[in-house]
């Protein structure tokens, strides 16, 4: 009798975990970090590793008087404002002329039944106006995206909760990618950015996954330029000796969707600079 109650209770718990709604996932996800780093205000996680590592933060803050991305960001604004050959411009493709919308992406488009990231939307805008697609990870697209992010400074990430159909399926696909071990070195994203956030690998402190999408595209010294969130993710995949996926592949879009939904409620503070 007692035994069967125990089994029922365990079965219930298990089905809760497996069948948790995105909303429940998000609550638990955020609680994990706010419990573990109880002295850090949740909005601080938008600063990535600098929320956790004071030494690294001091070095970083010293560079902020003249942010290394300033020039590239200006180029992004110019590109954004430059009309296409047909006379139209990027603003014509987006809600609110493309200003202050970063916090709503990725968005699940119900009519088209597919996920749209901001970079995908930028390229679709180009295609609609007879221009060629840009490469997804860096260069022009990252500059334009960085400019668009900068117009969302302080706006709260507001991804609509996936509830059914392909939106929910994409969410689950992203969640699965986040928690699955991969590559010759056998790491999941969660191994590093959840389980071991705040600890050091060599001299690098591991950032929390909470807050990852708030400040992209990031200007990385190592890259000497801007890179999108998916470019950064691809380099983490390569680090664990897994085959990185293509930018805007269904799986990376799904992962970006999951990660960004987990950060709902945090302020946009991009673009940012990183080592």
């Amino acid at each position, binding site marked *: 009798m007692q035994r069967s109650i125990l089994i029922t209770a365990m079965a219930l718990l298990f089905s809760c975990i497996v069948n948790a709604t995105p909303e429940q996932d998000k609550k638990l996800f955020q609680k994990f970090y706010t419990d573990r780093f109880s002295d850090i205000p949740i909005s601080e996680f938008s600063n990535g590793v600098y929320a956790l590592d004071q030494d690294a933060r001091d070095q970083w803050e010293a560079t902020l008087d003249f942010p290394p991305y300033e020039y590239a960001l200006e180029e992004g604004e110019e590109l954004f404002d430059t009309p296409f050959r047909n006379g139209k411009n990027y603003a014509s493709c987006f809600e609110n002329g493309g200003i202050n919308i970063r916090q709503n992406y990725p968005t699940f488009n119900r009519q088209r039944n597919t996920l749209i990231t901001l970079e995908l939307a930028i390229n679709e805008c180009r295609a609609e106006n007879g221009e060629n697609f840009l490469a997804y990870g860096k260069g022009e697209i990252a500059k334009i995206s960085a400019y668009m992010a900068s117009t969302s400074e302080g706006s709260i990430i507001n991804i609509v909760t996936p509830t059914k159909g392909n939106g929910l399926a994409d969410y689950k696909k992203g969640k699965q990618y986040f928690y699955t071990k991969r590559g*010759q*070195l*056998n*790491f999941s994203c969660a191994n*590093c950015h959840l*389980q*071991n956030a705040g600890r050091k690998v*060599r001299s*690098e402190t591991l950032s929390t996954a909470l807050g990852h999408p708030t400040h992209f595209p990031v200007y990385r010294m190592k890259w000497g330029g801007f890179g999108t969130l998916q470019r950064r993710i691809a380099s983490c995949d390569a680090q664990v000796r897994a085959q990185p996926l293509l930018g805007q592949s269904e799986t990376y879009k799904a992962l970006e969707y999951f990660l960004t939904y987990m950060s709902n409620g945090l302020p946009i503070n991009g673009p940012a600079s990183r080592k």
Partner: protein
Amino acid sequence: MNILLKKLTLNTILIGLLLVSFASATVADKADGKKIAFDRKKGNCLACHVMGDGDMAGNVGPPLIAMKIRFPDRAILKAQIWDATAKNPISIMPPFGKHYVLTDDEIESLLDYLYTL
């Protein structure tokens, strides 16, 4: 007779060469164990463990100290390196043997080095 002598000397030289190469192999292996542990492209154990005189060590895993006392059984230590997930399924430590990150020989030299810690 002459031929026999020639053969003999050749054999001695060969055996001598073999001995020399064996000797240098053992010396090289001892040094290699540490190199394998520190090399970012090999064990990169320092990424997660404080060990020996390695600098810029991470702190994801426990410090590797007093190995002889804590791991009297070499097979148990080897199993941890071969596949840490056998013992702890969510271990972050890469399965160095199981995923062919290191060869069996490399792991054996690594073990020799670990036992000096």
